[in-house]
């Protein structure tokens, strides 16, 4: 009951940002920007050390950032809080709890654990406690399953792992996807189109865990080219990156094909050909450009997904990346890990979408003018 009311209040608040007057948006937006900077720097710099740059950035934001961006910031920060609330509420409403064990511990043990880890019995209380911890102490809190560690200590060391795996997977996905997509799009409805797309679609037609298992079986166990699992060197990276890349390559190929078909129908292609440009040059100069544009807008969500959604690959290859926490957190009911992951994912999505917008502007002059 209380939860529903709080939820409605939150929704109302977020919706109301649309009607906020300009000065309010400026002030609140700038304050939020400053707050984010403060939270980011208080760990390494301490309260005072973080306050200075935060104030500076807030001032700059109030002075220099466009109204639209500030409005967006207001919405984003508020929805982050809502995200925490909704996730908490959802977690509390599903069966199970972080301290369940096969042998029922007595009441006292459960109460002691709840006190120790700061997990009250009600969702609202936990939400208040959690927000207090994040804002007041600047920490994502202790993990409930990996005792003695905070959520940061679990997720941050996994970041470089996911980054190296993700960057390679993304490169493979873009390379393979563009190649197949452009090849298919150059001659629609031909055999080369069908063949390329058939290859490309493998990634979204066979479950990832089957592809991974078969890759291990063939290339590691039978041929012995790569280690079966583990983490440490470049040789550990190849199979998982390919497995991770294939589904994304399929989507990219689909987008690239569409882009290529469209661009090849444009007048300037005919002009270029008429000018006597070689087919190779036409493809490299123009078709590729047409193919890249739709792909770029997909890269934002794809990067966020590739960094965080690699549970299957990490499990099959025992890679200590971030993807595991997204599933394990939910399965173990490790509330603080779940919330930490949700916040991280949200931040990544926002960040990569911003980057993509910038890249888009760089590539497409029309969009540049719009911005």
């Amino acid at each position, binding site marked *: 009951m209380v939860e529903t009311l709080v939820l409605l209040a939150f929704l109302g608040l*977020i*919706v109301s940002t*649309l009607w906020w007057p300009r000065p309010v948006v400026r002030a609140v937006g700038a304050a939020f920007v400053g707050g984010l900077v403060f939270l980011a720097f208080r760990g390494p710099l301490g309260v005072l050390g973080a306050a200075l740059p935060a104030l500076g950035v807030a001032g700059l934001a109030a002075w220099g950032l466009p109204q639209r961006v500030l409005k967006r910031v207001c*919405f984003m920060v508020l*929805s*982050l809080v809502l*995200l925490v609330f*909704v*996730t908490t509420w*959802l977690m509390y*409403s*599903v069966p*199970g709890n972080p301290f369940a064990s096969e042998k029922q511990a007595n009441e006292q043990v459960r109460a002691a654990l709840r006190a120790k880890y700061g997990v009250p019995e009600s969702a609202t209380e936990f939400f208040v406690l959690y927000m207090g911890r994040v804002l007041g102490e600047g920490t994502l809190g202790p993990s409930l399953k990996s005792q003695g560690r905070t959520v940061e200590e679990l997720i941050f060391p996994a970041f470089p792992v996911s980054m190296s795996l993700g960057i390679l997977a993304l490169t493979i996905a873009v390379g393979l996807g563009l190649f197949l997509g452009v090849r298919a799009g150059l001659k629609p*409805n031909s055999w080369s189109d*069908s063949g390329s797309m*058939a290859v490309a*679609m*493998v990634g*979204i*037609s*066979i*479950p*990832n*865990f*089957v592809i991974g*298992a*078969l890759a291990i*079986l063939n290339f590691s*166990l*039978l041929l012995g080219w790569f280690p079966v699992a583990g983490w440490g060197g470049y040789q550990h990276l190849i199979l998982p990156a390919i497995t991770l890349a294939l*589904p*994304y390559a399929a*989507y990219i190929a*689909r*987008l690239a094909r*569409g*882009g290529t078909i*469209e661009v090849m129908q444009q007048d300037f292609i005919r002009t270029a050909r008429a000018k006597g440009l070689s087919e190779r040059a036409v493809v490299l100069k123009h078709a590729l450009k047409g193919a890249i544009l*739709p792909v770029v*807008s*997909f890269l934002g*969500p*794809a990067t*966020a*997904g590739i960094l*965080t*959604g690699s*549970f*299957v690959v990490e499990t099959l290859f025992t890679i200590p990346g971030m993807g595991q926490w*997204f*599933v394990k*957190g*939910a*399965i173990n009911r490790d509330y603080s890990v779940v919330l930490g*992951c*949700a916040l991280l*994912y*949200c931040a990544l*999505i*926002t960040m990569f979408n911003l980057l993509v917008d910038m890249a888009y502007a760089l590539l497409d002059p029309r969009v540049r003018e719009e911005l």
Partner: protein
Amino acid sequence: MSTALPPNPSPQAPPEKGTSLTADAWRRLKRNKLAVVGAGLLVAITLLCIVGPLFTGYNPEETDPKNAFLAPSDEHLFGTDSLGRDYFTRVLVGGQTSLMVGFVATLVCLIVGTLYGAVAGYYGGRVDEILMRFVDFFYGIPYMFLVILIMVKVQGDEATKASAVPVFLSLGLVQWLAMARIVRGQVLTLRDQEFVLAARLTGASDARIILRHILPNVLGIVIIYATLTVPAVILLESFLSFLGLGLELSWGVVVSEAVNVVNPVRSYWWLLLWPSVFLAATLLSLNFLGDGLRDAFDPKSRR
């Protein structure tokens, strides 16, 4: 299994009604070899899954552990699984569930997404902005949590009966966002067209205009995207089965069981091969068909 989010579709002209155009589209579709082959294969597999189990002579749940892991033979076309159940029957019955999950979850997503998107697009302005902000908001939640938590919630509430409903619901509910965006984009361009204005002048209610005039016009694109949602949902279900959260018997279930028994120590390869072939053929067909439909009916939105 990926978080593939189709980007915002660009607004475009509505597909005009007219036999010539449709015929044109059909012609284009028929020229697309992959789409034609896909459609045929899909129909064949669906029929086989529905009708096949009646004729195999086995019950998919009838166990016979003494005859576990039999290799394919005349008696058991696809061999038997770890409990001695006829694998052919199991693959076909698993196909029934997988296909059903795919179509029902897509239906859920289609209804929710279309209505949501239509309302947002039709009213536009603030309403649109508010509604689309919620879509943005949901995009920010890792879909994995949503699926797992919704699934566990609905499943846990009815502990004594096995059911596929939670799977439909949770899978449908994470897929509707893209559908809502696409429909909204379409409706935005439709709402100022003459036929809508005409309907409004005759005093039709908003609900009537949306349902009777606008939705029929976006149905084409909705169906196209639905065709692409079905394979995505089936794939997601197989991932849930890999986590052990899925259904009792589906392609995802049999495949994820089989992955563990293909090993240099002992390879019961047929357990992995057959369901994988069926699954891959179905998903490929659906993807090709969806792509083909889009190319044919919506030539400008080749994204």
